[in-house]
């Protein structure tokens, strides 16, 4: 937002011109002796939607979980919205409040109503009043099409509905960036669309997003940039058409072939 240009104004979906929201430098992550991420450099800019694809075990989810400190990196630096990630309890909490995360398994709090799910962190972390939190919560539940489910418990919702509540819960914190860790992988096929619609709407509103997904349709339609991870490194990145249709790297071609065969 520091240097608004005409192009940005006309295209709020963003691109690689905005200021960097997430900066990862030389990220190495080891589990024991296994190197999962091997020197990743990655910038995600304000308003940009980046999808991370690649074979399982490539380190996509691990990379995402490193951004908000759910996984500790072995070496390297991560900055989110200008603040460097460190692992002290205080700084983690402050940073995490600015990073929304959506999980494959939804992870809604089962003992709370939908409304309590979307208000609890607003109140506990941001210190919003009950009325403030509820009004923001209601607005977002409305936006994901679940305004009428505010008093329901998660167990009484479909998977697609639960995931939409989880998105509302994260967005309610007014995060600088949203992380999606395979948000549709646990869903029945017929429920995938409703979640992707909400994500696409969020992308259109200019949210900065990092999305680990196997949904190539989403990558194609909503992403500004597709990053192919393989063997702990970035094998290929670029606009969706380029990476998904005419990958330059051998690993890119191999992955695509697998996708088309599967």
């Amino acid at each position: 937002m520091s240097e608004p240009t005409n192009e940005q104004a006309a295209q709020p979906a963003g691109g690689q011109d905005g200021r960097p929201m997430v900066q990862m430098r030389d990220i190495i992550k080891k589990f024991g002796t296994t190197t999962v991420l091997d020197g990743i450099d990655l910038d995600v800019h304000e308003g940009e939607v980046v999808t991370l694809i690649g074979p399982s075990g490539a380190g996509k989810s691990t990379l995402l979980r490193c951004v908000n400190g759910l996984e500790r990196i072995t070496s390297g630096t991560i900055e989110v919205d200008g603040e460097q990630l460190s692992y002290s309890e205080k700084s983690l909490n402050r940073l995490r409040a600015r990073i929304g995360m959506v999980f494959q398994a939804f992870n809604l709090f089962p003992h709370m109503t939908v409304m309590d799910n979307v208000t609890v962190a607003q109140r506990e972390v941001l210190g919003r009043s009950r009325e403030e939190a509820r009004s923001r919560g209601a607005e977002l539940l409305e936006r994901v099409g679940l305004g009428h489910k505010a008093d329901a418990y998660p167990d009484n919702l479909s998977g697609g509905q639960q995931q939409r509540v989880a998105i509302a819960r994260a967005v309610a914190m007014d995060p600088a960036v949203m992380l999606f860790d395979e948000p549709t992988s646990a869903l029945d096929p017929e429920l995938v669309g409703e979640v992707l619609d909400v994500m696409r709407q969020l992308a259109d509103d200019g949210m900065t997003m990092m999305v680990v997904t196997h949904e190539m349709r989403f990558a194609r339609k909503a992403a500004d940039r597709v990053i192919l991870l393989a063997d702990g490194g970035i094998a290929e990145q670029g606009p969706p058409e380029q990476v998904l249709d005419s990958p330059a790297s051998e690993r890119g071609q191999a992955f695509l072939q697998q996708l088309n065969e599967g």
Partner: protein
Amino acid sequence: MQHFLELFAEYAPLFVEASWVTLRLTAAALVMAMVGGAVVAAMSMSRVRPLRWLATAYIGVVRGTPLITQIFIIYFGLVAIITLDAFWAGALALAFHNSAYIAEIFRSGFQAVPKGLTEAARSLGMSRTKTLKRVQAPLALRTTLPVLGNQYIIAVKDSSLVSFIGMTELFQTSRNMAASTYEPLTAYIVVAIYYLVIVLALTALVSWLEHRLSAHRRPAAA
């Protein structure tokens, strides 16, 4: 039968009075044991190794020795150091005993909280303490409630052993009755009825709580 009912009625005031003693004794013990159990559970899940060892040792000792010996050791041990009446000595002994079992119940409850829920709370920026308070503890309580209720019931019945350090609670009252009526069978059937009523009431209370706390598992009313 007529005779039994007469005796039952005759001794009812004594047994009702003794029931209160048993209830107060168990309640005092359980309140302390809940606090103690929470502390021991926290120790057993601590990142500090000596604390974990201490918890393991404590639980091992409690589980590895009969309650009646624990009661005697605490009673004779504590009475040597501080002035303590039989009620509080008994309550302390029962608390000491139940803390270990309740600690294990709490620990299993916490470990049953899905890791993803803790991660979700932490990802929202909630601190360890807030995550514990708003997510882990309420969920752990819900899963442990049935087991906890079971432990409460055991505690009520175990409190009968405190009669051996001179507490006139329910069981001691039945022993007195047996001694004065020369009808031990009657006396012990009477006391069994009192214990049964207390345990049934407690069971109902726990079920009611369980029902109240499981609103999220029932289909929506709407």
